[in-house]
């Protein structure tokens, strides 16, 4: 049993995880006629908690509650993967990737995520606050504006050959490259 857990605790290679993620598409279609998509759960939460008089938030979110259960499941999966099956070693980065990460002033040897940005110490760091608040805001605002996120457009949209999703994914990358290569160094240089 222990060897089995150790075996599962290694990082899973892309050719195992990618196809398994792809299987989620037919699994959701067949079990419930549902389309894979995660950012909708943010909208449903807003609709449930504070719809005010906003037309876009006034709909029967309870009819979409499956999506909130799906999001809750992702939390549980992260809990299992991050505790019981956690990999004890840092993410195996190439020498070049380590250099890029360290150039941003972030340790490359922390584990799954840098503690300075996501651990308790992040709460005492102006840089971490700005990155998390601004990054989170752009994720929520941008995903809804674009009608979906990585799961809804890149996985579900491309799997069903929808050209608007292809355009959206291309712009995800344009935005990502612009941030990584032009703007991020300024944000990461903050104290």
């Amino acid at each position, binding site marked *: 049993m222990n060897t089995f857990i150790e075996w599962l605790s290694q990082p899973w290679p892309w050719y195992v995880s990618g196809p398994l993620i792809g299987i989620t598409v037919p699994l959701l279609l067949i079990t419930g006629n549902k389309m894979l998509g995660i950012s909708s759960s943010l909208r449903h939460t807003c609709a449930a908690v504070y719809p005010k008089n906003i037309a876009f938030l006034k709909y029967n979110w309870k009819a979409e509650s499956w999506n909130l259960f799906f999001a809750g499941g992702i939390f549980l999966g992260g809990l299992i993967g991050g505790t019981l099956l956690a990999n004890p070693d840092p993410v195996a980065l190439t020498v070049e990737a380590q250099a890029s990460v360290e150039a941003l002033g972030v340790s490359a040897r922390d584990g799954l995520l840098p503690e300075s940005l996501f651990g308790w110490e992040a709460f005492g760091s102006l840089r971490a606050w700005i990155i998390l608040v601004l990054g989170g805001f752009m994720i929520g605002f941008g995903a809804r504006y674009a009608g979906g996120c990585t799961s809804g457009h890149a996985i579900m949209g491309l799997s069903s050959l929808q050209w608007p999703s292809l355009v959206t994914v291309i712009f995800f990358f344009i935005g990502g490259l612009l941030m*990584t290569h032009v703007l991020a160094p300024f944000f990461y240089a903050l104290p």
Partner: protein
Amino acid sequence: MKNIKFLLIGSLFGLILTKTEAVSWYRIQEMFHFQSFHMYGIIGSAVVVGLISVLLIRFFKVKSLGGEDIVIPDKTFNKGSIIGGTIFGMGWALSGACPGPLYALAGAGYPAIWVAIASALFGTWLYSYLRPKLPH
């Protein structure tokens, strides 16, 4: 109770994202620096398997377990695909996370991710509020 199956499928999805390190800030930095094939391999093979599945479902006219025809609504194109897509990509690269990883990392016990989740909720709310005034 009918929603329990979605909790289970979500758990598998979250476990896979976590164990393959797609939730890792490091992997996202590496992807946007073109320093590893890992993330491209994950997204690419997921799309190939998803695409083959959708084609098979359509070809054999597979029905859902509830006996309904499986319908995939068309995604519509508007200016949001470009403007919203760019904003989302910037947030993805800055924080190293997207919505799935936000939840998975909360589960994995990274306390500061809750700041990003709260901010993502506010971003969603503000988009909804400003929607009538934004170009679409």
